[in-house]
């Protein structure tokens, strides 16, 4: 019997998973067009919170694009992440206005309590901290987004309380 090389692309996703259905539906809606890759990646990232490798393999196969092109595109854009960002997230804006108004102090305070730096996730995957290059809420500087809620004019004294109240992490 002819042997074929086992490929990292040969992964099956559970067809009953609603997230897989969502991505499959998006691909169909975009007519399997290769230039819709970024749109499809957005859908996948929203569904999973990040882009697991088997999901990327699924998209690659469905769109019939070279794997290198998918990986090139994913790693170019900051929005896409190959690792889980944590069950709950705290995004500290470090745009110019927030930087001038003390965003760094917020990050220091978070690190003091949760021992994680931007881009890291607590060992139990409960909380992840990220920074953004301006979320456009400069009038509210410094601004923080906890899960999906924007918190305005946050002080270093408040930040950890805000996180705990909103997410329950660190209570």
């Amino acid at each position, binding site marked *: 019997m002819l042997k074929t090389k086992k490929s*990292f692309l040969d992964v099956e996703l559970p067809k009953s998973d609603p997230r897989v259905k969502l991505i499959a539906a998006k691909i169909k809606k975009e007519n399997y067009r290769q230039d819709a890759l970024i749109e499809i990646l957005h859908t996948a990232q929203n569904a999973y919170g990040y882009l697991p490798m088997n999901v*990327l393999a699924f998209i690659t196969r469905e769109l019939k694009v*070279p794997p290198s*092109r998918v*990986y090139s595109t994913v790693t170019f854009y900051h929005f896409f992440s190959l690792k889980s960002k944590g069950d709950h997230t705290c995004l500290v804006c470090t745009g110019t206005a927030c930087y001038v108004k003390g965003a760094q102090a917020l990050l220091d305070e978070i690190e003091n309590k949760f021992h994680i730096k931007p881009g890291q996730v607590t060992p139990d995957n409960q909380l992840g901290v990220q920074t953004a290059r301006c979320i456009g809420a400069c009038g509210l500087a410094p601004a923080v987004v906890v899960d999906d809620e924007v918190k305005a004019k946050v002080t270093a004294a408040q930040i950890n309380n805000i996180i705990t109240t909103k997410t329950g992490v660190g209570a």
Partner: protein
Amino acid sequence: MPKISVKIDDKDLEVEVGTTVLDVCRANDIDIPTMCHLKGLVDVGACRLCLVEVEGTSKLLPSCTTKVQANQVIHTQTDKLKKYRRMITELFFAERNHVCSVCIANGNCELQDLGYKVGMENVRFPYLFQNCEVDSSHSKFVMDHNRCIMCTRCVRVCSDVEGAHNWGIMNRGYQVRIIADFNVPWGDSTTCTYCGKCVDVCPTGALWNKDATQGSMQKYPQAVSDLVEKREMKS
């Protein structure tokens, strides 16, 4: 093809419409260094070595992607351009880890030749000392990212000439790296055809044959240029 006249470095030339400044110069013994350019591949204007000054334009223009226009006066060897070419070369050397004496391509390296050509005596800028991998998982070839200058000739030859799309580019800024498929070891690639064109076009010691030894690796970028030309011929 209609002809137009241009003046390059005091030479009055008659050239065909649609020719690039670089092609005009190469055909008339005007030496402009290049790194990312290779005849037969789509030009990307990325290495910036071939920048020239065009009178009436304040910006420096890459000669590989700029087409000559009637009555242009172009300078290719001004002091400023020479200085910038030397600085670009210094940046190439400082970006990753280029140690010629122990390199597989020593003596057959376009980057090394460039250093001699532009008169680079030392690198005045801080080295980045990036930690780069050597991928020797492929049965025929090796990819040493320490020697890579991101000219992307390998990426272009693989997608546009071979059609395999094995190579891609990951990340951005100074953290860009050449990758195979999903950033897998080259040997695990599902798309590589083992054709070796990327090795032939690589200007440095980043891509080499596994059986090569120090200083013995010969490259044949011309082979790819010729191949493209032959493919365009009508039988």
